[in-house]
């Protein structure tokens, strides 16, 4: 524990759930980290007025009595940054849960604490600079192999610049050992691998870069229809049971980010266990390494203290920015931001603040905005490029998207993956609605796609989107008169769309092949559906019937392509396409010229 600046700042006057009022306070600082009561519970000063301080406590306050001491630590609520973060699971205020279990047992008690980074662990440090070099903020001083796939870069802190006067030799060091000394304008600064950063302050970076490279998720409905860019923001709203968490898990598993920070904020304990047991077993298709080697978990489940839930998303953002500064592309999953907003509401209510909509505080919108603004593709201080993408789940009460959290979130994100109850009920997963969702990145990432899979991609995608729009209108008519009453050409539109949903939009997260689809395979699959559409509608003009077209054996091949054709097997696609063409040729042949 940090002792610097620790001093008694007052005593408890009132306890109301997680909100504690302290009296006799004269030198507390706003947002200072404090220890409350005899159990030394972690808290943060959130309001000062006269000799009173309002403290939000991150642990259960049962048993805290008026008169107990409040101790200030002299620093804001901060995270420890350094090697050892990746592969670890923390709670909302960065307490390592494995270590807590080792010392405190299966249940989380009050006042338990353990350092976020293991002090006993030695890391192999290799210096990158020589003594005498000029050091600017963000420069790489040395590297540490953190996991088999993450090289940890020890950076000069944002407030350190000058001449390197001492550098540690290559070797094993603990996180608190000095690895470099920098001669700065204000004297010598000792730099260790571990640094601290206040969670509510965004880490500094250079200029923002345009978001033109997609974050490839391997989820077809996302990549093809509603892409997310590296450094982008997206919200996933959906009522309970529509698959928010499943979608988040799928993206966390298969997206091409270098690092994943998964924040389980006020959600189920078993879901975190699921991640913990499943991720180590899964292998990243790009590196062949375990997915846990690129994942940091922050678990503040629904039954854990509500104020730590409020802090957890900032903790996640701070860790993500730290790796961004090393030049990595990081994706933050926040599941669910609604629980975070509710934590704000609960604390606001306990402080008797005047509520705005549905009891939420008036500053809800600014808090949501400042969280999502921590995303971005940036030039780092060291001159490299890194990004933080934020994927936030939203849990609207009653699945009603007009509630405040969904509405405000919508203002600050650029992509929206709306989950649809009807689709989920029919077990169509991912249940991302192709009608209500949108992505403002679609245009920006188009050049990337055209370069990667071919120039026809743009036209193919546009044609499919057009068909889906058309289908909606036709289905409305069909609902009134029955689909039999429609002409074959229109019934065929419905048929192709239904095929597209089954063969392309639906994706089985548990099938070894289907769970991840590369951009190339996505383009081939899309082309296959469109081949069926283009040839089929010509055949109908020549006299073939809708029923004949849907009975074609080759249609089943299109449906099964998603799990039957392996990545990179473009010959198989050629074969299916040829078979389909032949079948339609035969059909047209029957109707003569």
């Amino acid at each position, binding site marked *: 524990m940090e002792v610097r600046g620790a001093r008694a700042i007052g005593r408890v006057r009132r*306890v109301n759930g997680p909100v504690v009022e302290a009296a006799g306070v004269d030198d507390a600082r706003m947002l200072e980290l404090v220890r409350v009561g005899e159990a030394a519970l972690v808290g943060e000063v959130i309001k000062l007025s006269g000799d009173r301080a309002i403290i939000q406590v991150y642990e259960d306050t049962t048993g805290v009595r008026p008169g107990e001491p409040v101790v200030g630590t002299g620093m804001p609520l901060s995270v420890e940054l350094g090697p050892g973060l990746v592969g670890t699971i923390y709670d909302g205020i960065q307490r390592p849960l494995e270590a807590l279990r080792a010392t405190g*047992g299966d249940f989380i008690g009050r006042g338990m604490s353990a350092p976020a980074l293991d002090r006993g662990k030695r890391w192999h440090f290799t210096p990158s600079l020589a003594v005498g070099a000029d050091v600017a903020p963000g420069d790489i001083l040395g590297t540490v192999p953190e996991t088999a796939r993450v090289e940890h870069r020890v950076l000069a802190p944002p407030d350190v610049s000058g001449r390197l006067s001492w550098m540690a030799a290559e070797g094993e060091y603990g996180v608190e050992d000095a690895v470099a000394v920098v001669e700065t304008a204000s004297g010598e600064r000792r730099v260790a691998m571990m640094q601290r950063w206040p969670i509510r302050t965004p880490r500094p970076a250079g200029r923002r870069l345009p978001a033109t490279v997609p974050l490839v998720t391997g989820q077809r409905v996302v990549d093809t229809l509603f892409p997310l860019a590296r450094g982008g923001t997206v919200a996933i709203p959906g009522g309970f049971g529509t698959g928010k968490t499943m979608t988040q898990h799928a993206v966390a598993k298969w997206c091409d980010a270098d690092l994943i920070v998964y924040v389980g904020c006020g959600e189920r304990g078993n879901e975190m266990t699921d991640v913990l047991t499943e991720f180590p077993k899964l292998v990243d298709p790009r590196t062949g390494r375990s997915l846990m080697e690129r994942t940091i978990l922050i678990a503040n489940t*629904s039954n854990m203290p509500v104020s730590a839930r409020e802090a957890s998303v900032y903790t996640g953002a701070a860790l993500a920015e730290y790796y961004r500064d090393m030049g990595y592309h990081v994706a933050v999953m926040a599941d669910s931001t609604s629980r975070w907003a509710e934590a704000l509401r609960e604390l606001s*209510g306990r402080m008797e603040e005047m*509520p705005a909509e549905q009891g939420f505080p008036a500053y809800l919108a600014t808090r949501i905005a400042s969280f999502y603004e921590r995303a971005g593709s940036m030039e780092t201080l060291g001159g490299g490029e890194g990004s933080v993408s934020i994927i936030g789940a939203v849990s609207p009460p009653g699945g009603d998207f007009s509630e405040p959290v969904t509405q405000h979130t919508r203002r600050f994100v650029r992509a929206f993956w709306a989950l649809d109850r009807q689709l989920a009920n029919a*077990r169509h997963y991912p249940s991302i609605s192709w009608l209500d969702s949108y992505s403002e990145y679609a245009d920006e990432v188009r050049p990337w796609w055209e370069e990667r899979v071919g120039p026809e991609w743009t036209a193919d995608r546009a044609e499919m989107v057009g068909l889906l729009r058309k289908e909606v209108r036709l289905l409305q008519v069909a609902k009134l008169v029955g689909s039999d009453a429609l002409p074959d050409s229109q019934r065929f539109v419905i048929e192709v769309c239904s095929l597209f949903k089954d063969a392309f939009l639906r994706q089985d997260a548990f099938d070894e092949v289907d769970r991840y689809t590369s951009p190339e395979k996505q383009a081939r699959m899309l082309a296959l559906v469109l081949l069926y559409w283009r040839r089929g509608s010509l055949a109908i003009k020549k006299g073939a019937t809708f029923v004949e077209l849907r009975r074609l054996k080759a249609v089943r091949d299109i449906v099964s392509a998603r799990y039957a054709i392996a990545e990179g097997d473009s010959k198989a696609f050629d074969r299916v396409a040829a078979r389909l063409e032949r079948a339609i040729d035969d059909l047209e042949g029957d109707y003569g010229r």
Partner: protein
Amino acid sequence: MAADARAEALRRELAAGREYLGLERIDGPLVFIKRTHPVGYRELVEIVDAEGRGRLGMVLDTSEDMVVAQVFEGTQALTLPGSKARFRGEPLTVGATRRMLGRTFDGLGRPRDGGPAPLADSRSDVNGRPVNPVAREYPRDFIQTGISAIDGMNTLIRGQKLPIFSGNGLPHNELAAQIARQARLRDGGSEFAVVFAAMGVKHDVARFFERSFEESGVLDKVALFLSLADDPSIERIVTPRVALTVAEHLAFDLGMHVLVVMTDMANYCEALREISTARGEIPSRKGFPGYLYSDLAELYERSGMIRGRPGSITQLPILTMPNDDISHPIPDLTGYITEGQIVLDRSMYGRGVYPPVAGLPSLSRLMKDGIGEGMTREDHPRLAAQLFASYSKVKDVRDLAAVIGEDELAPLDRRYLEFGEFFEKRFVTQARDEDRDIERTLELGWEALGLLPADELRRVTEDDIAAHWVEREAEEGA
């Protein structure tokens, strides 16, 4: 350290002996006491009325000049000057033991059956402590309930929390009792127990469960905690906590597999609202407090399994949706916490379907890991997915038939109607004492799919169709 502990114990004892005469204010279930010694948050308090009878309560807000406490046993007939308050120096605890099985208790855990209080093995705070997420064991053992709509489509897993969303007059009690009677693991064995918590339900509901346990000869494996409709409403806030504390002891200390039935969560939430309103808190939706989600999570998350400990807690909460509205805050927030939900459908029940488990809104989130090869049968996941997909189409066809008339339907649409009939009348419907094994359930599922043409079945594989699918004509009058 030891000296500290001794001093602390002494201080508590002294404080516990202190009594304060006279209350400052009584407001609904709340009492306000002025100028006390420093009282801990959530500390247990005993309010003694003029006749000398004590009632238990809990501190909700504590400060130097005023303590606010909720009284579980009601504030009726309390007087301001005549009442005394005694603080216990610790939160409400309950003593748990295996000997509680076969007994009936009140909502605060005191014997209700006239017997003596059982000697407790351990006393713990009824509020429990959150399980460290890394200590959890992911649940994946299939529980066969013998009910096709559950086993086949919304499989129950040991350690799951799966609520029944129901409405007044629907057979949720029958269904819960049937599950409690028939639930078993396929490999059998291991010791089980049932903990039953009744919150604000009618006497005959409690009696129904008691009789049902009695008839199946398991009453000595059941601990009942009853806070009935005519008991003080505030008591309901503690009842599930007492029951879950006992369940945790049975499961995690004694290694038993515990099924916890809690009914009716709607009454629990209303008691919570009553207190919140009395305290003048800012309400969120429908007058319920903003912390309803966190509060419910404190209950529902007390289920599951823990690594290295043999037992488990499976929760089956029952809640009646006010006005059958699934978007009402109570079912809505519950659905966000629990691992799925069994939704009962009034119109199905009206058509004589028992159990009226609504096909589409029901869901079991843990199902994916508990079914398939080695657990139920290899084709089970795809069969269930296909049944869901086909059944969702039935709804569309029924809507269409309502507009253009059944006679005008295309032949394919008519086959969907037949499939829907069979699915509801033969697959879902079963007798209240019928215990179907999973093989029979899956067989019936394939029989239903036999009514549809093979090219409509896109969620199953070619191999599944070859192995299980046989085209059938609808039986007359099915």
